[in-house]
């Protein structure tokens, strides 16, 4: 496996200086501190920005790559209108402006936050037909066994959470790290409808923290602009 990145900077005689300038550098993109190639990529992508008012987009989230990896990011402003530019941010820090046709290639330290987690216990008396609902997902109990109901919950695909089950406990982990302020998922956030006294108590929860290195891009105009981008990562 190999990835190569080559840059050529060229200035003809009389352009920047009276003499011609030329520089070429080639890099093999390898893992941090190693000579083995980076093994993962998002592939080449194109993202359209057409929003009024102007809205930023997170092109790559810190969760996408290793914090101390030798990750590399490629960005290109596909606009042909000279005055149109994308402002590139790392988290809240501005890097610079990519004007029409400009491109950038840079290493990326993807410092992630932590993902919120919480655990529920399916307990007390449940009956077949009782319902449990969270994150837009509803399950209907197939029987009255609490461990089986926990298994049903764990079998679902939640939009914003992943799950792991142990007996009648189900642990939820957010798909993305974020800082939700002081709010953590609680028992009241889960809708339970049982014929008996069945419940779904959150007995353990931990807040998430914000990522610190998301790559955020802001267009300069509300009319359509396209960004070409690619990430090689660990």
């Amino acid at each position, binding site marked *: 496996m190999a990835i190569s990145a080559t840059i050529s900077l060229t200035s003809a005689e009389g352009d920047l200086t009276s003499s011609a300038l030329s520089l070429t550098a080639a890099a093999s993109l390898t893992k941090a501190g190693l*000579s083995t190639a980076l093994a*993962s990529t998002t592939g*080449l992508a194109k993202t359209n920005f057409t929003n009024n008012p102007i809205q930023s987009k997170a092109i790559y989230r810190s969760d996408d790559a290793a914090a101390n990896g030798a990750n590399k990011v490629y960005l290109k402003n596909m606009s042909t209108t*000279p005055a149109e530019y994308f402002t590139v941010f790392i*988290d*809240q*820090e501005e890097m610079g*402006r990519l004007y*029409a046709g400009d491109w950038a290639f*840079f290493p990326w330290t993807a410092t992630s936050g932590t993902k919120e987690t919480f655990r529920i216990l399916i307990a007390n008396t449940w009956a077949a037909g009782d319902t449990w609902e969270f994150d837009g997902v509803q399950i209907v109990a197939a029987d009255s066994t609490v461990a089986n109901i926990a298994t049903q919950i764990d079998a679902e695909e939640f939009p914003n959470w992943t799950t792991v089950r142990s007996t009648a406990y189900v642990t939820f982990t957010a798909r993305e790290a974020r800082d939700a302020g002081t709010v953590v998922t609680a028992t009241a956030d889960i809708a339970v409808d049982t014929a008996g006294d069945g419940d779904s108590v959150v007995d353990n929860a931990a807040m998430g923290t914000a990522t610190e290195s998301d790559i955020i891009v802001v267009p300069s105009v509300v009319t359509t602009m396209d960004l070409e981008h690619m990430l090689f990562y660990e």
Partner: protein
Amino acid sequence: MATTAAMTLNSDLMTGALSASASTTMMKAGTSADGLDQMRMGYNKVPTGTSFDLLDATAAGIDKATKVYICNESTDETYYVTIVIDAKTIGRLYGGDWMFIPWNQDDATHDLEITATGGTNNITWICFHEGETLGTQAD
């Protein structure tokens, strides 16, 4: 005509070919006819243990189309320099790696900083710009 920056990326990570190429003529902010016409360049041996300002932000660089090229010429792949803008880490440039970024010096603290790890790192750098605030002679 002005300075051009071209790059190619080639990879055999996928079952099909994955490549990208880009070329830009470095123009002043918002123009298509007036190229970046000034530059600074250097080659530094950067010792470990201290964060250095590789490039100081200047007021003349606010909201401009400045471009910075940095190459870590170190041949030891465990060596790297950490690139920071105004206390925010951009990434680690390992031995043999290069980078090319836009740089908006949007305030006086928006310096481009560098810290070496592993050993003394050898760095080539070029800053293409359209003006900078030169320091006044002090003594």
